[in-house]
């Protein structure tokens, strides 16, 4: 682990924490983008070029914009008067800790199951593409169908609203 890793990790965690702590919702969305970008750079730091750049493209480019527009369109952009901590913070903490425990258990367990994966694999974009249309073609198609369904749904929702207005 290099100092670069700690730097990026600190950036990511700080961004995520700030997204929880800040009061203004748009600020939250913006610092969440910092966390996304930090995560992307962590991927790049691990030589996972495709994952890192895809993370940047999808999360910083698209998801952040989506979040921000959703906030603006739902009148959530005003700073709320409530406390930052909700009343059910204890329950949230427990759930978060449980998720973290399960994930870390899985990660630590994977070292035992896949001992040969310790070396840095040299994965190129071409290999990822081959794997996507070869071995993982079924999941890819399912995701495609899901996305198409979501898109049709969005179109129907938008159309319904328009007809009501007329």
């Amino acid at each position, binding site marked *: 682990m290099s100092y670069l890793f700690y730097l990026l990790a600190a950036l990511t965690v700080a961004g995520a924490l700030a997204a929880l702590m800040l009061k203004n919702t748009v600020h939250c969305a913006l610092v969440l983008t910092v966390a996304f970008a930090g995560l992307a750079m962590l991927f790049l730091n691990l030589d996972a070029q*495709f994952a890192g750049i895809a993370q940047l493209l999808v999360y910083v480019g698209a998801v952040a914009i989506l979040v921000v527009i959703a906030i603006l369109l739902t009148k959530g952009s005003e700073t709320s008067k409530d406390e930052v901590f909700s009343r059910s913070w204890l329950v949230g903490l427990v759930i978060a800790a449980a998720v973290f425990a399960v994930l870390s258990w899985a990660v630590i367990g994977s070292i035992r199951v896949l001992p040969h994966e310790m070396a840095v694999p040299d994965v190129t974009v071409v290999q990822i593409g081959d794997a996507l249309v070869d071995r993982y073609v079924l999941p890819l198609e399912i995701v495609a169908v899901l996305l198409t369904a979501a898109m049709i749904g969005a179109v129907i929702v938008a159309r319904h609203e328009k007809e009501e207005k007329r």
Partner: protein
Amino acid sequence: MQSQPKPPRQPKRECEIPVIEKTDQLFVLLQHWLVSFLPAAMQPVAGVLLSVVAIVCIFPALFALTTVFERKGLGRIQNRLGPNRVGPFGLLQPVADGIKSLTKEDIVPLSADAVVHYLAPVVLVVAVFMGFAVLPMGRKMVLVDLDAGLLFYFAMGASTELAVFMAGWSSRNKYSLLGAMRAVAQMISYEVVLLLSSVTVVMMTGSLSLTKIVEAQNQYSWGLPHWFIFTPWGCAGFAMYAIAATAETNRSPFDLPEGESELVAGYHTEYSGFKFALFFLGEYLAMFSISGLGTTLFLGGWSAPLSSLTWVPSWIWFFTKLMLSIFVFIWMRGTLPRLRQDQLMNFAWKFILPMCLLNLFVAGLWTYLGSGWLRWVICSAILIAAYAAMGWGEMRRGKIGPRSYRYAE
């Protein structure tokens, strides 16, 4: 020199080729020479730093020149003189503009979100500069030769949208916010087109690396280059890429986000002084980098337009093509009226996007039809027929008529 295989450059004539190669690799050699003064441990870092400094200096200098060029060109189109007071032919105008923007008061609105307001231009310029990192500006002249260079470029391009939004939102001005929303909607819509029109090139070369894409085009038959624009799918792809690039950079006729007749100046209404200059710089840098990418993808990057001209240094070709694209940008700005928001969206989603998808299909067909004249005929016929049918269909629907207002009656 019929076809030029790149990596092993065989010295045919002993005295001539090295000179050509030297001029071709001028900047690379200069960099190596400068770096060689440093201790070996520092050399890689210093080399990268030197390249970064070169990029950070050259493109703003080009920006300064382009502003004069643009104002002169627009003046010519609009039958006036353009700037002609500062220096010979007004060439020193950018210096005066720079001093002016540096000395101007930096006004931040009282209700503005100061931090975000401050960060927005910085984020924009940084994100735009990052795009230059993967552009091959000449033979072996690329800062980082990423395996997924094209993807990196688009990731950086997508990040500029957030900066535009930050600028518009933090200003607490309705014109700014409207401009930012328009900009974001427009950039997201046309980014789809931009990506899909570039995908054809990736399909053909089988690589996301921009250097490999240039190498694939750096071949000649009968003295003519194998640029992708000279194929049916490449020509159509380039046309759509050019339209999307104009929209991505918010240039006229797609300059609705800053439409001064409606929105004062759009998302940078509340910026003054040097921050405004940064937005201005960002817009032009985005123009340079997107033209550079278009050059790399469709116009053969740094390769020469004729095999007999390969002795001209590669970087000259790259920058010539870049400046030609900039000239077309300026020309379009001077001649085309601005689109309306609904026209803009309809054009992106109902016309260019289907054409892009069809072009992907045509590109696939091109590969499977093998080499021969048949694929030229079939692919061109499909594209022209689709274009004609869609254009005719849109005209038939009779959408052209007196303008109707929904809200402002």
